């Protein structure tokens, strides 16, 4: 843990990803992309952390499997939404 400046990069990437997630977008796909960006920032963070434990990257692979599953679940929900509503705009929601 010799250089601590790299922490700012991870926190910045994570914060930007969260910011895009909570912003008002027109499409649903932007929200799913921001989720994937957060996953990417965590992947980077995890990689750097695991490098300090003698390059033991197995947990990183498990994390990657689960986050890919979650991303594909998001996409399948997007597909079912397009099938029923016709588009992926946020304005076509009708529930409150």
């Amino acid at each position: 843990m010799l250089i601590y400046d790299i922490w700012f990069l991870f926190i910045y990437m994570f914060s930007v990803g969260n910011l895009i997630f909570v912003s008002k977008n027109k499409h649903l796909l932007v929200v799913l992309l921001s989720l994937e960006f957060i996953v990417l920032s965590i992947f980077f963070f995890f990689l750097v952390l695991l490098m300090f434990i003698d390059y033991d990257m197995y947990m990183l692979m498990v994390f990657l499997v689960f986050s890919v599953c979650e991303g594909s679940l998001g996409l399948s929900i997007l597909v079912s939404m397009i099938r029923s509503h016709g588009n992926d705009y946020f304005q076509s929601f009708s529930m409150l």
Partner: protein
Amino acid sequence: MLTNNNSNKMFFLFILFFSTLISISSNSWFGCWIGLEINLLSFIPLISNSKNLLSVETSLKYFLTQSLASINFLFMILIKFSLLKNFDMNNIISIMMNSSLLMKMGSAPFHFWFPNIVEGLSWMNNFMLMTWQKISPMILLSYYFNKNFLIFMIIMNLIIGSLGGLNQTSLRKLLAFSSINNLGWMIFSIMISENLWLFYFLIYSMMIFMMISLFFLMNMYFMNQLFINNMNFFIKLNLLINFLSLGGLPPFMGFMPKWIIINFLLINKFYFLTFIFMMTSLIIIYYYIRIIYSSFMFNYFKMKWVNLLMKNNMSLINLSSFISISSMILSTFIFM
């Protein structure tokens, strides 16, 4: 989900049960995160099964909030791991981890998705959402919590749960706000001891099960359906007993866990918190009684040309009423 059969549901229910067990019995925080992810992965196919627009929107909202919460949870786990804060529980990292777990549970101030989603689900899916989905975040909350932050969250839960239900006409949203209020009690009980939380949770799930099975059997989703049906007297009585038990009134079953928590609060001199617990319970009982009195006294329909809604087998309804009334007294006969 083109074929909507039971084997699909059984498969996903099986994985749902195991995901909670993975999450609460893991050795590291990463295993907890894996359990929460599998929970999300297996709950979404359970709720997106029907072919109307509402179920798509519901599963979308559920997915977005839960995945954001669990990915934030993982980031905070990594920060906690990198800064080596394993035993110091009163810092900002525990606040962040608790916030993401509270968002997964649907507790205030992250509760805004909860009444929306409850409005779009059927009764059985609501039952799973209100009971089983709360187990894993609660137990994870007890592993690393920030006491001051959680007490503030409890107060918010109680107030929002009681005041939010005042203007509702939909039964599902009413039970959702009641669930948020009971989350306040449950978070406090898990800060005391896990055994007490298990006791409160079991009794709460039994009460919710009795109410939801009654509404499910009569296919009622809104409050006006309680008044215009031509219900049998015993079904209305069962409704009265279950509502009052859920509110926590003394001779019924729902009073017992609240009694134990209030006992602990008063012995340890949490006087202000006791005041808030009591007052918000009063508001909740007010709007339950409002419903039941309307059903019993002001809107009592006895139409002659419509058959009475009497079930062929009333034993389930009678049994649930008997359990609700007599549980507190019978529990004193257990010498353990």
